């Protein structure tokens, strides 16, 4: 057991640190004096910075060299993240593309797709978004209704709606899960597509949340035409392809828990500033929060160890997200009780955190569905009896409609 770098890892860290030292002046300033304020400016600057990071070997660390990556392991990816954070510069803009969607295309895409999309994705020239969740399909993702129909010439016509789409407002492409055959059981009739976000019929609308800000989008598809070769991983194989994306999502969550900024020291500083450090109840509550968040950090190292040994993290990685979100919620409650109503002032970082967390609890799967999945796949408990097994999706929908 060793938390220190091997000589190779230390050499990589030194290279990353030196590169950042040399290039940090080019990084966009996002807070403090001289910070960029206009969203368009910020996005442009961060895209450019992502390109630099890719050239410096600090983005796409685990991507194969053939696609512009470094061909290195997850440890080096974590080292790159640590050094970026240490240098106080922003990381890549398109973490969803580079972390999840690119690897999905690498695993399932055609050679043409890899050649066309991966380079510009990695360099931030084209940002991607993930078009999976729908208003009526979140935890039960395979229940999506967005429909892709074959035209006579073999091309596709897409209609439907997606929701909770990060970065859609400036994305060039989306990876979209659609139903191509409603007459088979729901997991079997799905196909993954590449969708150009500037195609006629695509409408992106900001989705405001509790905080009042719109960090996600709704995306509408009205008879959007896609070429015949727009599918990724084959027609009818969409569920398998989606599982790959979700596996990379778990890896991303497993390795990047601290990226959300739910750091015990940040909470402790706020309580110290309010002079609350001697209160026994404050100590008890902060102690529990800090212990759990510290555990998540080491769970990340355990995930990393497993990855190094060639194991793929299972759904249990989702428990780290449950812990992180619930601990952060508890921290928000505690800090608000110490600061009083000022914690909820519109400019307060705590008001923002308190507003953001209830939604985050459901992101990447609600806590309830995660616990079901983990109970069944990890503990081997029997599944909840379900009424949709083996039933063609169209019949299922008809039954649901009749029941309402």
């Amino acid at each position, binding site marked *: 057991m060793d938390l220190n770098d091997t000589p190779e890892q230390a050499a990589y860290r030194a290279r990353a640190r030196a590169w950042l030292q040399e290039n940090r002046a080019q990084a966009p300033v996002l807070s403090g004096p001289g910070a960029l304020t206009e969203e368009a400016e910020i996005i442009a600057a961060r895209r450019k910075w992502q390109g630099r990071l890719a050239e410096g070997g600090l983005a796409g660390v685990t991507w194969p060299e053939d696609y512009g990556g470094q061909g290195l392991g997850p440890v080096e990816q974590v080292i790159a993240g640590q050094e970026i954070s240490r240098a106080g510069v922003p990381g890549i803009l398109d973490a969803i593309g580079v972390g999840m969607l690119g690897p999905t295309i690498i695993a399932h895409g055609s050679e043409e797709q890899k050649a066309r999309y991966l380079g510009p994705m990695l360099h931030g020239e084209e940002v991607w978004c993930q078009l999976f969740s729908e208003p009526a399909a979140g935890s039960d993702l395979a229940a999506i209704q967005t429909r892709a129909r074959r035209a006579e010439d073999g091309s596709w016509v897409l209609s439907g709606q997606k929701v909770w789409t990060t970065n859609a407002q400036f994305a060039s492409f989306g990876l979209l899960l659609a139903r191509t055959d409603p007459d088979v059981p729901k997991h079997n009739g799905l196909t993954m597509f590449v969708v150009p976000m500037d195609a006629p019929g695509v409408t992106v609308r900001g989705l405001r949340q509790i905080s009042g800000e719109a960090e996600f989008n709704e995306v509408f598809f009205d008879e959007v035409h896609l070429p015949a070769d727009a599918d990724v991983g084959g027609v009818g194989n969409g569920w398998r392809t989606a599982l790959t994306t979700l596996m990379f999502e778990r890896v991303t969550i497993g390795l990047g828990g601290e990226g959300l900024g739910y750091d015990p*020291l940040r909470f402790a500083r706020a309580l*110290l500033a309010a002079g609350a450090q001697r209160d026994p109840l404050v100590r008890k509550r902060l102690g529990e929060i800090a212990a759990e968040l510290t555990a998540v950090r080491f769970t990340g190292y355990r995930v990393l160890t497993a990855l190094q040994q060639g194991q793929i993290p299972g759904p249990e990685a989702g428990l780290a997200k449950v812990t992180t979100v619930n601990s952060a919620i508890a921290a928000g409650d505690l800090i608000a009780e110490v600061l009083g109503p000022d914690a909820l002032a519109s400019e307060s970082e705590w008001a923002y955190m308190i507003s953001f967390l209830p939604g985050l609890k459901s992101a990447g799967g609600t806590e309830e569905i995660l616990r079901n999945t983990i109970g069944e796949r990890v503990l081997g408990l029997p599944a909840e009896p379900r009424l949709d097994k083996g039933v063609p999706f169209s019949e299922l929908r008809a039954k649901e409609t009749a029941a309402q």
Partner: protein
Amino acid sequence: MNLALSDEQVMLREAAREALSRVKTLEAARAALDGKQSLPDLWPTACEAGWPGLLIDEQHGGAGLDAFDAMLVAEECGRVLAGVPLLGHLAATAILSAAANATSFLPANASGERRAAYLPARPPADNDGAWSTERRSGLGREPVPAVGPTDGDGHAAVEGACAFVPDAPGAAVLVGAGERDGEIVAFAASSEQPGVQIEPVTRYDATRSLAHVTFAGAQAVILDCPIDALASAWHLAQALLAAESIGAVASALEVTVQYAKDRYTFGRAIGSYQAVKHQLTEVLRRMENGRSLLYYAGFAYRGAPAEFPLAAAAARCVAGGALDYAARAMISIHGGIGATWEHDAPLYFRRAQLSRLLLGGTEQATGRVAGEVFALAAR
């Protein structure tokens, strides 16, 4: 960055599991509660396996291993609720190993021939500047024993008491902290002398050997060891208790998951109900968090000593909470039978209830986590 167990660590764990499987520890725990028979003596098992010398270097007859290895063994003991008096012995040998004038004791401690017990002494925290030990009852803490002047042979007289000392009954030597002229010193006292009284106490969990220890003019060797070693022993004891607890959670979870698969109500296995499934995943969540912190504590003991108090306290806090939760879930998921004397669930529950009160209590560990985090935040 690599948290994988070495081949030696895997072997250590497997050997421990195998050695402990030869004794029906759960049945013995129940019988001991009934007063029908005393607990089997597992010290010979420990000696045969080399556990007494885990933290003593090879030069002095030990295995020269690290805290994490000791925690692996503690976890296996916890899995079967075995009453192996290692917690007190290992913490005591960590102090003796750090003392320049105790090397002659070490071979007998390493072989297990002379068993040692650690007198828990809580080091100061950000909100409490004093060293303290457990009191027999009520809130608050007691001062550590008073130590008199050292004579020409390096001995001194000790006066005072330590309550609820783990593994003290039957220990040959008692190792702990005392106070002399406002300074903290480490001492080791033979239990075989008139000035030492060891009064065994059983509280709720018969597998936990405890005693109230009283020193009345007892002669002790003053140990030439840094005060940090005394503080580290306290945190080590917290980490070992956390490891034991995680072991108990793991086996409680296995038993309860199996029951949730086997037991049917309303035509389906109870484990298929979300209300049951979610409780069990909560046990898993708490267990995995606790285990992650065992890695942290195991790493920090030597790899980052400044972080060891935080790591050990966090492990104690989370593992203690995990065992409380797991024992209650075990009872409730088993339904009425889980609350009967014949079932194993009450043994886990008893283990949880007593463990949370020992060595300062789980709550103080939680407070220490906060104190350590406040200290880091104030930098």
